[in-house]
């Protein structure tokens, strides 16, 4: 990779100036795009509440949601595969936690761990089918998109005669593992900011005087954590090189001893893990699991990754880029609301801005890499 330091000078390696080396990063396009998006909304939506504490928390949480699934989708895409079952997996994982934890009454931490195990095994099954049959992952995971969504509707319908299972917040009360997904951190700091008048406080009701934002949700902590782990894994480890190799040219990688199948299956499992983290955070925050959760999230993940500069064909991309792509997508989506865009034109804007982000990114990549 571009930022792997060269230790021994080799006559086959072209000399690159430090400036140019600093610029040639897959995430450069994402950085420029992020700045552009913030400037844009700074101009058009500055006094709309988008940049007060509630507003910042709003688009941060939405971006963090995209980030969690984008990290998984990014690594998998670099490894040369797709997972279209991410959205259905989110719905399925949330529903399983609800069924285990509420309907069956298991302790919430058991329900969460069993769901993680179940979903990661389904991810492994996805990967196994793809590498064994050689079918495109597009088709295999599309099948699981339907299979998992079907179960997500069927199971609660059969067991509870409804499609939404509530009461999770009560069931998770005081649970150590549930707090890791649904809680917030930094409560004291935000209370202090509220008292100091830096952020707004509630004007009435039982929470009058408390700050409108009472901490950083664990969702955001998970998102940042996954980005760091994903980035280090991809750029600082041998396994990371294997991921690039598997996605670049699987046959060449196999011939040079890279366990391509293992890498791909592991990445499918990681994507499933990310989807389950998303589901756990959502279920613990909202207290219910619904059959419609996560619809179309697989495309949102892929969009974020592509905005972030990864190639759909695999072998190129960066986790930081994907995270910035998620940030751009989240800020644009929520920012359009703040800017007061007519709701029926909302998707037109979303499409136009996303298209520009990707075009911009592609141009930048071509300029800096000299690729045609």
């Amino acid at each position, binding site marked *: 990779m571009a930022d792997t330091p060269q230790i021994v000078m080799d006559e086959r390696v072209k000399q690159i100036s430090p400036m140019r080396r600093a610029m040639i990063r897959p995430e450069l396009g994402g950085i420029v795009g992020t700045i*552009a998006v913030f400037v844009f909304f700074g101009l058009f939506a500055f006094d709309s509440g988008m940049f007060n504490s509630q507003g910042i928390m709003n688009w941060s949480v939405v971006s963090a949601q995209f980030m969690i699934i984008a990290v998984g989708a990014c690594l998998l895409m670099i490894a040369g595969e797709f997972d279209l079952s991410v959205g259905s997996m989110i719905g399925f994982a949330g529903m399983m936690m609800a069924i285990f934890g509420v309907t069956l009454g298991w302790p919430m931490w058991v329900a969460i761990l069993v769901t993680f195990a179940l979903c990661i095994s389904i991810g492994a099954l996805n990967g196994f089918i793809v590498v064994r049959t050689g079918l495109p992952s597009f088709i295999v995971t599309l099948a699981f998109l339907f299979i998992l969504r079907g179960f997500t509707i069927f199971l609660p319908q059969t067991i509870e005669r409804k499609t939404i299972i509530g009461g999770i917040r009560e069931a998770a009360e005081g649970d150590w593992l549930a707090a890791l997904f649904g809680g917030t951190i930094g409560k004291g700091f935000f209370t202090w900011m509220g008292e100091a008048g830096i952020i707004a406080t509630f004007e009435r009701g039982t929470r009058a005087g408390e700050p409108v934002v009472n901490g950083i949700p664990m969702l955001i902590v998970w998102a940042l954590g996954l980005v760091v782990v994903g980035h280090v894994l991809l750029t600082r480890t041998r396994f990371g090189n294997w991921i690039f190799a598997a996605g670049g040219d699987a046959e060449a990688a196999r011939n040079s001893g890279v366990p391509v199948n293992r890498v791909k299956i592991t990445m499918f499992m990681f994507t499933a893990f990310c989807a389950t983290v998303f589901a756990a955070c959502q279920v613990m925050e909202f207290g219910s699991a619904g059959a419609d959760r996560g619809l179309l999230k697989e495309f949102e993940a892929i969009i974020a990754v592509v905005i972030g500069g990864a190639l759909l064909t695999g072998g190129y991309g960066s986790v930081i880029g994907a995270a910035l792509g998620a940030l751009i997508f989240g800020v644009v989506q929520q920012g359009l609301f703040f800017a007061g865009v007519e709701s029926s*034109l909302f998707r037109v804007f979303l499409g136009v801005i996303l298209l520009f982000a990707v075009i911009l990114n592609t141009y930048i990549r071509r*300029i800096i890499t000299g690729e045609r």
Partner: protein
Amino acid sequence: MTPTMKLLLAATVAATPLIAAGTAQAEGEKYILVSHAPDSDSWWNTIKNAIALASEQMGVEVEYRNPPTGDLADMARIIEQAAASGPDGIITTLSDFDVLSGPVRSAVDSGVDVIIMNSGTPEQAREVGALMYVGQPEYDAGLAAGERAKEDGVESFLCVNHYISSPASTERCQGFADGLGVELGEQMIDSGQDPAEIKNRVQAYLSANPDTDAVLTLGPTSADPTLLALDETGMAGDIYFGTFDLGANIVQGIKDGVIEWGIDQQPFLQAYLPVVVLTNYHRYGVLPGNNINSGPGFVTAEGLEMVEKFAGEYR
């Protein structure tokens, strides 16, 4: 980096007039209506028309927001966003109390007045601190319909549920089943939102269960394809057909005698009245003392003229 800057500039210039058009504001209070409906649900067009009319008459600004896929977790984010943008009031549905009560409560506590419309119950509206509830109690409407069908001699039915992930839809079927006095089970089918699929599933169910007395659909999304399905199989006018909500095709169906009745929850009132109530509350401090039931009203072949004229627009 010149090409980059050019692109950036082009993007900004291209988007500017559209954004400006979007933010062109009327004088007066600002309200936001948040629905749970996916973009594909045409029924909500009446809501959009009603708030456009109300905002014009009252001289206020009303925005419509919805989660594009109907994902209720996304809707919670939209309510949080709406509260952050500092409107005078929010009008929203409460289609899943667990998910939405937190954000709505926070909006109320941060000083935004809230009215619950369409989905939810008067009790839930009170619990989240909303001013009032405007809508049709879903289970009761289904029950009333079921009792009516029972009087007409119906003993078995098919419920075409095109929005199975919404608890309100299931409550309608449940109410209908209870009204008939039968157990709800296999008769409720998950039809999906695609017209061709809905049509095929209805045909498949009716050919597998030929002794079904009645069909209940939950809105134009499922009623329109069901009309086609019955027409094709020659069962139109023979099988007892009732539906929730109105639309152009449903009105035509009632007129043709294919549909027995349509349950009108009068969505116009659900959107129009909250805007009027909020505006008057903010201007003069007056507030009705109770919740408002906008339905159910049964629309039959008699007195169809007005309904027909405005179907899909205001009815």
